[in-house]
């Protein structure tokens, strides 16, 4: 059994050393440092510059060792000494050192020491040095590296400085520039090893860890920290040291000012333990040791959850070695807990920085999970055949049983979805239309709780419900917003088929359910929606089978009349909760819900089932009421705003031209597949021809739903072509899912009414239906080929990210373009032209459901409209009052340079003719205009008495102009809290709508006065540091609490079960029960 490695921090026996370390400090000529013949300087004596001692650790070095020594010898740093520590070489390296670097000292550690143990010898062997420079025996410093590292340490006030490491043989290739770390200790390198060095990373950067191959450490810091931790040998000792240094208040930076070649062949690790396993367990040990108890309370459960997920994924995918690494990491750390606790005490004693400060330098999400998902992209194709083979080899009872089949179906769905969207993990989800990025998750949550949002020009009131959901999603992805966005898109591909599977749960065979799930998956709607950036369409598509299934059950008609019985009103609770979940993303789901209810009611009435129609009506009303209640704040806000229909529709754009092929294929045309996309609708015709009894009944119901949805498309296209309408994939979603369910009913009919019969036209039709279902898979497989659903690679937000230079939180951007091209929800200000407002240059998910426009937004729209009508040549000047620094005109949502529409071309020409806007060349699909005179959102202006509200000051300078002023407020720990100095006689102008903002000064609280009828101004009489903050409304918070309670009550009520009471069955015997049905419709009657 392996003995636990010792930690320097505790009192374990020191490594076996020669009797007197001083005696072992040798130069090339003598073993006595005090009497050196060469007159080599004492390593601890300064010479006008800080003393640096290079600590080169070696063990059985290769031929490159001489190069490493020569690299040190070539340094021009005047106060550099070299200490070579031999960590147990079989041959004494002293002669080599003497030949290459006569002034160096050699210290031999007789036992087989790890790097950490050997390096820690410097603690006792070196005195008076300002810096220690740790090096490997396979790293060679470039000339001037020491000077660069030392100067960086002073300039950056860093405790640890790492060098830029390049490949030994190919110095134009990067090996390491340090690494960032996530909250679980997993590292993400700053550069890709082997990446071509084009100076693209040449900047001094704060990182979490730098390599010990060339690491400069402040000597006093190293001593305070007790050197490297020796219990984590060979790997991650650098991370441990850097993290502890950060906790102690010292920064770690990497700098290109010092360069070293690195061969990465140093023989200092434990070869018996594979590197990955050690890395996993050491990272876990570091996490356990460095976090404060409070922080550990929530990091540890998350780490455990992440490890469990990692373990599961590795087991499922057959990567048992990696799974073993995870198990090993936890068991090893549990076994080493006492030692870890001792280290924790030492870390606590040295703590100078709060964990929140440390966290601010870390990256969000889980590096390991992201890495796994990224690798899934490339591995997906190989796993699918394996999964299919595994399915083929499953025991027969698995294939018969519903549970295993469901599990298999889910696994298949997930695998297919991961393959189809594999490139979204690596390349990221482009910000196209509704695929808005997520920024400041905690700010979103605070805004939701306080009832305040900075969207547009700021507003009080209920925040769209997507904010808390976004927060929850990022919790699941360990804070990675990018991963949360990607998973939100891909989730629809799994949720909808599962919903279709569940529609026939307990009422049809596995094959029927499989076909229902398959047909739901392969329709064009989700692929179109994903390719076009339609999140609302994906949400409606995902919810559709769940809504339809619940409505079907409400009818109480066979075969959905078995099991428990609830009143329609009570069933409506569940339906409403389902709709409420989709409502978060797509408010129009409430309209869809009502439409579905009406369609099924119509079908029921036409089929002579008035009672069922009544039940559906009651249930749908109940569902709508439930939705309204569980979304209470949004409901209240929606009813109170004049543009409620605009918000419900979810679009500012009219339908594009719809032709017959689009209608028949249920596709907006983004997905390729040609006529094969008609396979599902054709298969849906089969049950109408061959099915009987309840199968025909429900197939007809599905067709009524589908025709109803298609009728909406036709009505809008023909009679309201210019009205804003939901996107085509969203309008097609109900029809697509309904027809997919109908296609599954065809399989049910095949099982019940075709198989076993004499061969005739029914068999032929049924076979045709099966063939159609099989063919329908082809377009889906083809769409999966791109790995990103043909979603464009480029997007306008990425394109404008290169435009910077201003504090993103202090200036706004207005976006102009065709309503369907903007990466946010814009409002139409001129025919064919919409406008949106963002803080900074990046839209956020909040911008998808902006609040009703206030006075400020109306004024801004008026200014822009007037300019586009040719009424101003100085738009920049007018925008300065609104703190707008940039105008972005989107001609193409993918930034690919498509021809702009006439309206957008007109806007481009007009903006190009503005005297105070400068065009910034960014990308072909964009026009970006920058104003040089924008005022900040929070700015200081002089002498309120001299400035009249709304006054224009054409000749004013930036410092005296109330519309420009001077920025100077910095954000506190939340976007609702700002702080900055204010001089006597100055006013603070807040270009923000909304109530409840207060300015706190030394004299007390200052109340705002209206400025320009929509903004606010705070007059200050004495200079002080002022705090600008907004407090949330208590009423709003109470409303949220009530909402939470209502959700809980509704959930409880919806889940409550009422046993079937035979005497209370609503439907008469004429309505068939599954398995024993008198026919309700069809030719059997």
């Amino acid at each position, binding site marked *: 059994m392996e003995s636990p490695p010792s930690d320097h921090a505790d009192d374990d026996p020191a490594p076996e050393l020669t009797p007197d370390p001083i005696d072992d400090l040798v130069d090339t000529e003598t073993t006595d440092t005090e009497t050196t013949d060469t007159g080599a300087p004492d390593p601890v004596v300064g010479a006008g510059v800080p003393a640096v001692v290079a600590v080169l650790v070696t063990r059985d070095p290769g031929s490159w060792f001489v190069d490493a020594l020569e690299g040190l010898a070539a340094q021009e740093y005047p106060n550099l000494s070299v200490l070579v520590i031999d960590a147990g070489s079989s041959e004494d390296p002293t002669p080599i050192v003497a030949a290459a670097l006569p002034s160096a000292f050699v210290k031999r550690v007789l036992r087989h020491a790890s790097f950490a143990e050997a390096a820690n010898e410097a603690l006792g062997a070196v005195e008076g040095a300002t810096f220690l420079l740790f090096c490997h025996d396979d790293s060679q410093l470039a000339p001037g590296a020491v000077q660069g590292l030392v100067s960086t340490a002073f300039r950056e006030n860093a405790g640890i400085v790492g060098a830029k490491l390049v490949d030994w043989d190919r110095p134009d290739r990067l090996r390491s520039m340090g690494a960032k770390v996530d909250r679980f200790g997993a590292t993400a390198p700053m550069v890709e090893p082997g990446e071509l060095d084009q100076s693209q990373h040449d900047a001094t950067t704060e990182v979490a860890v730098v390599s010990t191959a060339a690491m400069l450490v402040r000597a006093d810091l190293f001593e305070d920290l007790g050197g490297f931790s020796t219990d984590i040998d060979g790997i991650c000792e650098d991370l441990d040291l850097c993290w502890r240094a950060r906790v102690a208040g010292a920064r770690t930076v990497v700098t290109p000012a010092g360069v070293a070649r690195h061969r990465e062949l140093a023989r200092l690790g434990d070869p018996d333990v594979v590197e990955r396993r050690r890395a996993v367990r050491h990272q876990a040990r570091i996490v356990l040791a460095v976090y404060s108890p409070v922080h550990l309370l929530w990091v540890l459960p998350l780490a455990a959850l992440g490890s469990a997920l990692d373990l599961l994924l590795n087991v499922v995918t057959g990567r048992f070695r990696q799974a073993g690494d995870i198990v090993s990491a936890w068991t090893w750390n549990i076994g080493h807990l006492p030692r870890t606790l001792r280290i924790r005490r030492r870390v606590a004693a040295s703590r100078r920085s709060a964990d929140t400060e440390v966290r601010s330098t870390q990256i969000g999400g889980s590096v390991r999970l992201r890495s796994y998902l990224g690798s899934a992209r490339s591995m997906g194709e190989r796993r699918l055949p394996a999964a299919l083979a595994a399915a083929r080899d499953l025991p027969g009872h698995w294939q018969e049983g519903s549970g295993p089949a469901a599990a298999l179906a889910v696994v298949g769905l997930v695998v297919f979805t991961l393959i189809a969207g594999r490139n979204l993990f690596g390349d990221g989800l482009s910000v196209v239309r509704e695929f808005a990025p997520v920024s400041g998750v905690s700010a979103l949550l605070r805004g939701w709780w306080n009832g305040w949002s900075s969207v547009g020009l700021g507003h009080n009131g209920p925040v769209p419900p997507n904010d808390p959901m976004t927060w929850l999603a990022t919790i699941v992805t360990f804070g990675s917003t990018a991963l949360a966005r990607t998973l939100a898109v891909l989730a629809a591909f799994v949720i909808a088929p599962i919903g279709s599977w569940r529609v026939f749960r307990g009422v049809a065979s596995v094959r029927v359910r499989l076909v229902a799930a398959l047909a739901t998956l392969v329709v064009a709607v989700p692929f179109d929606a994903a390719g076009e950036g339609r999140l609302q369409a994906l949400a409606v598509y995902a919810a559709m089978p769940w809504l339809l299934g619940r409505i079907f059950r409400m009818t109480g008609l066979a075969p959905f009349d078995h099991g428990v019985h609830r009143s329609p009103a009570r069933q409506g609770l569940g339906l409403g909760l389902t709709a409420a979940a989709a409502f978060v993303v797509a408010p129009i789901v409430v309209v869809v819900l009502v439409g579905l209810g009406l369609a099924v009611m119509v079908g029921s009435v036409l089929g002579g089932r008035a009672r069922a129609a009544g039940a559906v009506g009651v249930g749908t009303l109940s569902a709508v009421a439930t939705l309204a209640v569980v979304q209470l704040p949004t409901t209240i806000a929606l009813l109170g705003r004049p543009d409620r229909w605009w918000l419900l529709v979810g679009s500012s754009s009219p339908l594009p031209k719809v*032709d017959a092929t689009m209608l028949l294929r249920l596709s907006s045309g983004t997905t390729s597949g040609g006529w094969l996309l008609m396979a599902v609708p054709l298969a849906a015709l089969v049950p109408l021809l061959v099915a009987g009894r309840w199968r025909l009944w429900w197939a007809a119901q599905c067709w009524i739903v589908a025709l109803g949805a298609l009728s909406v498309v036709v009505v809008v296209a023909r009679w309201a072509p210019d009205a804003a309408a939901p996107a085509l994939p969203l309008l097609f979603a109900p029809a697509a899912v309904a027809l997919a369910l109908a296609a599954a009913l065809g399989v049910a009919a095949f099982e019940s009414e075709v198989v076993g019969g004499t061969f005739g036209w029914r068999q032929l039709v049924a076979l045709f239906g099966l063939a159609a279902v099989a063919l329908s898979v082809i377009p889906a497989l083809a769409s999966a080929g791109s790995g990103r659903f043909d979603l464009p690679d480029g997007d306008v937000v990425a394109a404008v990210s290169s435009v910077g230079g201003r504090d993103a939180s202090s200036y706004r951007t207005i976006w102009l373009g065709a309503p369907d091209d903007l990466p946010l929800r814009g409002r139409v200000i*001129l025919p064919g032209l919409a406008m949106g407002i963002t803080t900074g240059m990046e839209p956020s998910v909040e911008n998808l459901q902006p609040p009703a426009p206030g006075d400020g937004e109306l004024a801004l729209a008026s200014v822009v409209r007037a300019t586009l009508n040719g*009424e101003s040549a100085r738009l920049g000047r007018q925008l300065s009052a609104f703190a707008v620094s940039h105008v972005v005109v989107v001609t193409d949502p993918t930034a690919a340079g498509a021809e702009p529409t006439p309206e957008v071309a007109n806007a481009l020409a007009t903006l190009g003719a503005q005297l105070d806007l400068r065009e910034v060349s960014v990308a072909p699909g964009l026009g970006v205009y920058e104003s040089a005179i924008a005022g900040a959102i929070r700015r200081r202006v002089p002498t309120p008495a001299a400035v009249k509200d709304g006054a224009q000051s054409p000749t004013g300078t930036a410092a005296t102009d109330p519309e420009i002023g001077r920025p100077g407020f910095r954000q506190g720990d939340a976007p609702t809290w700002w702080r900055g100095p204010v001089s006597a006689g100055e006013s603070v102008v807040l270009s923000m709508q909304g109530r409840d903002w207060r300015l706190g000064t030394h004299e007390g609280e200052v109340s705002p006065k209206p400025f320009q009828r929509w903004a606010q101004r705070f007059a200050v009489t004495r200079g002080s540091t002022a705090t600008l903050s907004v407090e949330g409304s208590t009423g709003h918070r109470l409303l949220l609490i009530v909402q939470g309670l209502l959700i809980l009550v509704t959930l409880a009520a919806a889940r409550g079960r009422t046993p079937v009471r035979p005497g209370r069955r609503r439907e008469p015997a004429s309505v068939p029960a599954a398995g024993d049905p008198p026919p309700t419709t069809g030719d059997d009657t």
Partner: protein
Amino acid sequence: MIRRIAVVVVAVVGTIGLTMLLPAEGPAPATPTLLPDPVVLGASAEASTWYCTASSDASATPTTHVVTIGNPTGRALSAAVSGYGSTAGAAPTTTTVQLPARTSVNVDRAGLGGDATGAVMVEASGGGIVVSHRLVNGRTSDEVPCATAPSGAWYFSAVNTQLGNSARLWLFNPFAADAAVDITVAYADGVRIPRAFSGLVIPARTARLVDLGATVQRRDQFAIAVNARAGQFTAELVQHVEGAGLRVDPGMSRTSRRIMFADSFGAANVTERLVVFNPGRVAATATVSVRPDGADSAAYPEPFTLDVPARRYVELNLESETRLSPTGSRTLVVDTDLPGGLVATRVVAATKAPNGLGVEAGLANSAAGTVAAGTWVVPRIDPAAPGRSFVRIVNTSTDSIAVVRLIVAAAGKDLDAVPGGKVEVPAAGAITIDVGAAVPADTQGVLTVASSAPIVVERRAAASNSGDFWTLSAVPVASTVAPLGELPGIPRASATTQPSATPPTVTTK
């Protein structure tokens, strides 16, 4: 079975029926209102900006450059008048001018300080104003409205660099970034971009003068297209023809499918030349229709059909056309089948003052009218003797009589320009009104022509020193702008229009 059949029929027929109900066309694309240049903004506008590009030229005979700012509205405004020189990096010199209600103000470019020559930008604190500028060189002069919108392309159809003549192109970039342009020269026999005209940089906030004659020497006719590689700019051409006069050509920044010259006239000693320029890359056919005043549409002369090769021009000398009456007022309309449209310029020269036309011996060109409007503003109108100052009004409506009110805003008052204040213009008809007496002596005014139907207005006047004359388009008011509609006897050319089998006498050089 019946129910099954019914369900199948409903599903199939319903689906097919829905596909048949789909409209053949998608939603009509929104067509943004493209305002003409120049245009008078409504009085409610918060600001208006004018660019007066051409200026006096230090290298030529001393020339005076005067900017006239007219404020026909009832509210007092102010304007920042900035002079831009040719020195890169030099700040413009700005003077604030007060604009009392119903007055017009002259600003001498030389008085602005800085460079004595160069472009002028006028930024008014409101809408409703109109700005023109005139260049005076000894006894010759010309006046044009200033531009209200920069563009990335400007076209000049008629340029003459014969010996003794000068053709100087002014380019003005008032923006914060440099602009770069190419000048394409279209000859009768080819097109080229001379090296000297390639990649010309107009530094930010400067005006640049390009002497076309220095590069394109001794040509009596060529056309140019000035296209920006980067940025936007304004351009004007100053043409001095030895012994004939001075003309300032504001050029066109956009092509158009229908162009109207409202004030064409024939007289002894007057030559009238129409140059149609096709800056596009596709050959076009243009139809030039002539509508003599007072004639029935059935009696209009046969239209001229011109084949205009890509990036080339065609001239039409009207005085030599036998199918036209040698005397009398008329209206010219140029139509083309080219979707991208054409540009055109009408150049008028008088060797001797004809009687009663308000024309002295001299040279002028009139800018192409591409829109009709309900209200037009004539930038500057001076007191003049009878027969020396006219306004020409063409009613573009085919079925409505235009009741036109002419108001002169001068010295703070609104005055009727004609007795009774109103005139009537018959449907599709035109009248010429002498307005020389409408302005009190020793003052100048701004003439507003407001009509009950869409009209086109041009101004023609002789210089007060009897040395030259000018014709210029009035400036339409933005809110009243309308497309040039159908006109009787003038079928709009379509893509299927075939060139005339027997072309008229057309001079293609």
